[in-house]
């Protein structure tokens, strides 16, 4: 298990290098990455604030819960904070499991929990000013399925 909370940019492919590789008990590897999207065409930067200490704790307990529920062979969570450029990866999760359903479900579970339970807050920076991103009811509702 690897949990990273970092301001440094990361490369999805590089982080996945070797993940779940060279073993006989892993049949499925799933990765999800969230990138900085610019819907308005005016986004200059995305700023991510977090709660040092609680962030690491909540990501770890979330990953631990996923490992227990789906018997994952491995799990990886990376989340950035600070200022991010358009198109850059904000975060990623990866799961390795015996079967594909477990790997997919665990990755979606991690994303749903991380979205509504890990202490990160996004703010969009445009030429017109800055604006906090509002939480979506649908993100909170997504937790109900687990």
């Amino acid at each position, binding site marked *: 298990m690897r949990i990273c909370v970092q301001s440094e940019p990361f490369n999805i492919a590089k982080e996945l290098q070797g993940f779940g590789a060279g073993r006989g008990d892993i049949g499925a590897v799933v990765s999800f990455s969230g990138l900085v999207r610019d819907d308005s065409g005016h986004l200059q930067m995305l700023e*991510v604030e977090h709660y040092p200490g609680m962030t690491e704790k909540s990501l770890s307990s979330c990953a631990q819960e996923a490992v227990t529920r789906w018997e994952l062979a491995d799990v990886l969570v990376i989340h950035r904070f600070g200022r991010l450029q358009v198109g850059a990866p904000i975060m990623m999760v990866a799961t390795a499991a015996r079967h594909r359903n477990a790997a997919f479900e665990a990755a979606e579970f991690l*994303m749903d929990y*991380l*979205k509504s*339970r890990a202490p990160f*807050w996004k703010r969009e920076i445009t030429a017109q000013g800055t604006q*906090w991103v509002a939480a979506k009811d649908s*993100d909170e509702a997504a937790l109900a399925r687990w």
Partner: protein
Amino acid sequence: MAKLELVYFAWVRERIGRARESIETQAATPLQLIEELSARDERYGAALSDVSALRVAIDQELADFDTKLTGAREVAFFPPMTGG
């Protein structure tokens, strides 16, 4: 009186005008703490009055607004999270 470290994030931090502070309080719950703070200064009221738009963590664990603060050292107020 108990000593508490308060921390704020995102627009809660901006409205209150600081990221953290140490206080002495008799509040038994986060809700009572909000009432106490709001009585001290209107900036707290502006930031914390609508608890439906807030989340609270006690010692870095998400909690309810009526969770007992007994033994707590750090209480954080912030908006719903938007990570991922």
